[in-house]
């Protein structure tokens, strides 16, 4: 009986996790005849891709496939690496999730809040996104640790590319939004700092000072999980992803980076074009806000051009769909970047190889090369043309969305 039910479970595993054509998935797959974008440069023709046990076994003009390989002839279709969305709220109940009992919660891990079966993942997948950075919300000064996950896979554990990927730090008005000054006796925990921009910065400084002290101190035991995270940031073991929208925030972020010697990455940076020279000088990578969205305080100005400006100035820049910004699917945002004057290669790179570099996972994803994860997307036409569709999406060598047979 037990065995039987175990068998049942086994089959369940098969069906539920590998999808209908589970059998076929185990055999190697050979994709030929498509125009291929490897992560840089132009679309190249005449490249064949051999996918074997989850990795790209071989990519090149001349690939000899094993006999049992399933061959797909992709006549005039386009292949790109699986897209990488450098900032999302996939799998979360609400666009921004925070542990609000304190302003400084660097130890909180967003991975605990992710629902791997959420439809948001499936939508993202069908739009060609195979890797996504899921981030804590913006209501805390230190929001916590984000996680990088694949959008499909056996289980959440298998899907995680990097846990505790980056520490979220938020500047500007958001962290102080819900708080109220402690004038009278506090009726609830929201009577606390910060209540304004300066306060936010003060919280950051304080946190880092304390962490620095703790780093020096003798007894390592007392060091709390929270402090430990901050110490890692000071030791440059972990990058600090700094959300700064308006130009003064951007400048502040750069100041803080120098002051504490931390590795920062600019998040959203909506008004980057005002602080252009600073950013270029500091060579800080930017995870830019989606170009199709024009945020409220930015008024009506057409800022699709911002990303183009950054890219042309040689700043490593990638595109995010963001947390509740009402963005379009990632690939469409890239198209808008092109409309804003970015060239096509740069645009495609900014949703594949560049984010992979910025997130520090370029050893696994972001480009099509031997030994890389077999994450790739087959498109009906050039992905940047707004009327393209993702025909098939492979994650770790398995067809997770769409279908190649039709």
């Amino acid at each position: 009986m037990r065995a039987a039910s175990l068998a049942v479970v086994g089959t369940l595993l098969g069906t539920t996790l590998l999808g209908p054509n589970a059998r076929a998935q185990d055999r190697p797959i050979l994709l030929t005849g498509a125009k291929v974008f490897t992560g840089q440069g132009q679309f190249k023709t005449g490249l064949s891709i051999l996918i074997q046990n989850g990795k790209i076994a071989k990519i090149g003009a001349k690939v000899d496939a094993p006999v049992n390989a399933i061959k797909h002839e992709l006549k005039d279709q386009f292949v790109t690496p699986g897209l990488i969305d450098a900032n999302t709220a996939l799998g979360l109940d609400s666009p921004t999730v925070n542990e609000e009992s304190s302003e400084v919660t660097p130890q909180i891990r967003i991975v605990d809040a992710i629902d791997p079966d959420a439809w948001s993942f499936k939508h993202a997948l069908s739009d060609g996104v195979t890797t996504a950075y899921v981030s804590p919300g913006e209501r805390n000064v230190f929001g916590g640790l984000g996680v990088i996950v694949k959008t499909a896979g056996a289980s959440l554990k298998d899907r995680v590319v990097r846990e505790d990927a980056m520490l979220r730090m938020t500047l500007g008005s958001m962290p102080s939004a819900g708080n109220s000054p402690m004038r009278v006796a506090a009726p609830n925990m929201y009577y606390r700092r910060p209540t304004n921009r300066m306060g936010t910065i003060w919280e950051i400084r304080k946190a880092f000072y304390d962490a620095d002290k703790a780093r020096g101190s003798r007894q390592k035991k007392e060091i709390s999980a929270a402090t430990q995270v901050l110490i890692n940031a000071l030791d440059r073991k972990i990058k600090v992803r700094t959300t700064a929208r308006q130009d003064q925030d951007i400048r502040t972020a750069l100041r803080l980076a120098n002051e504490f010697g931390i590795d920062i990455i600019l998040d959203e940076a909506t008004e980057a074009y005002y602080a252009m020279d600073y950013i270029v000088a500091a060579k800080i990578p930017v995870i830019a806000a989606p170009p199709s969205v024009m945020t409220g305080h930015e008024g009506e100005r057409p800022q699709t051009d911002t990303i183009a400006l950054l890219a042309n100035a040689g700043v490593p820049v990638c595109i995010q769909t963001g947390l509740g910004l009402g963005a379009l699917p990632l690939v469409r945002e890239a198209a808008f970047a092109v409309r804003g004057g970015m060239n096509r290669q740069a645009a495609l790179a900014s949703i594949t190889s560049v984010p992979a570099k910025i997130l520090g996972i370029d050893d696994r994803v972001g480009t099509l090369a031997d030994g890389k994860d077999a994450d790739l997307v087959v498109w009906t036409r050039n992905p940047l043309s707004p009327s393209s569709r993702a025909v098939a999406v492979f994650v770790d060598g398995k067809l997770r969305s769409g279908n190649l047979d039709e």
Partner: protein
Amino acid sequence: MNSTTSVLPLAVLACLTTIPAASAQSAPSTKLLIRAAKVHLDPQQSLDHPSLLLSGGKVAEVASRPDAKAKAPFAGQADKVLDFPDAVVTAGFVDAHMTLGDQSELSEPVESFTPELRASEAYDPFRKAWKQVARKGVTSAIYSPDDRNLAGGFACFVKPGNRKGSLGEAYLKLSLSHEMLNRQRRPTSLMGGVEYLRDRFDALQKTEVRARGRSLRALSKTIGGSHAVVISCREPNEIIAALDLVDSYGITAILVHADEAAELLPRIRRTGVSILLDPLSFSSSKKALDLPGKLAKAGVPFAFAGESDNKLTGSRLRHSMAIAVRHGIEASSALACVTTVPAALAGLGDRVGSLFKGRDADLCVWSGEPWNLSSRLLLVVRDGEVVYHAPSNDNTQDGDKTR
């Protein structure tokens, strides 16, 4: 197909709560003999034309007659004989997760992590509701802290309506479901809650026994399977978080309210937890209705639980049974879900939930099969004493009394 067989092995190691065996001290002296057309000793085994001799609050003898005419065994030994020519006898129902009662009593609003609390202190045996529950055939229950605290405290084993207090300490109640979130205290988010629990469990490993505070000491009972843990989790992410905890700290766990479990069956199976389902109602979602079947298929132990304090108090388990049957579950499995399985999950498998010789004398007599709503409840016996006897003259359930 039938879940129970695969349940019991699991359930035994599931949780050995420390229930004092001798709770029958004040059992009634009268020996009761009950004769009926049929008895379900447990969902698998049934006897025709049985006669059950109850004495000392236990099932003293069970024997079946060749047919209704034949002279019943041990008629002599009984002080009182109750005859139900064409009725069916089952064990009294067991509710493994009951949060009945004054809601404010079942959680501590100020602090969210309160494992040291005990539901037994909130238990008021004289509540009317308990009486009603008993009169509807629910004769054993685990009275549990509600879902509004990260760690609500320890539940207790009670027999509804017997005016005694708790009969022993049961599992520790944790909660990761949204009820636990409270914007006025830590945690305000699921991940915050998980982090909090991890922090506590780690602290448990760091600090040596003597240094532990009350809450840590309470928490420590769950390590090494002396006490099970019941975790309330609804959404998939909550379930996953729960399973992760179970895996990383080696606790024996039962999930409650896990209506979304369907997507995660393999994982649940691997981690080896059992599930307490909310009672089914006529307006349950399709997900909830399909889940029992899926769990049974996957061989995950599950039971219905949660006679909450609402309109249907007392009849919800029976409704669940009927609806589950209407939705394709085998009748015997359905019966198991309200008798043997919950008993086993609560570590009371050897006391309640079945009617073998030596078990507590908790039973119900029905005019037909218990899973048909058309059959009436004729008699309820708890610890050998009759707590409900349907008025024979007019055959309506007199509502005004059951209030």
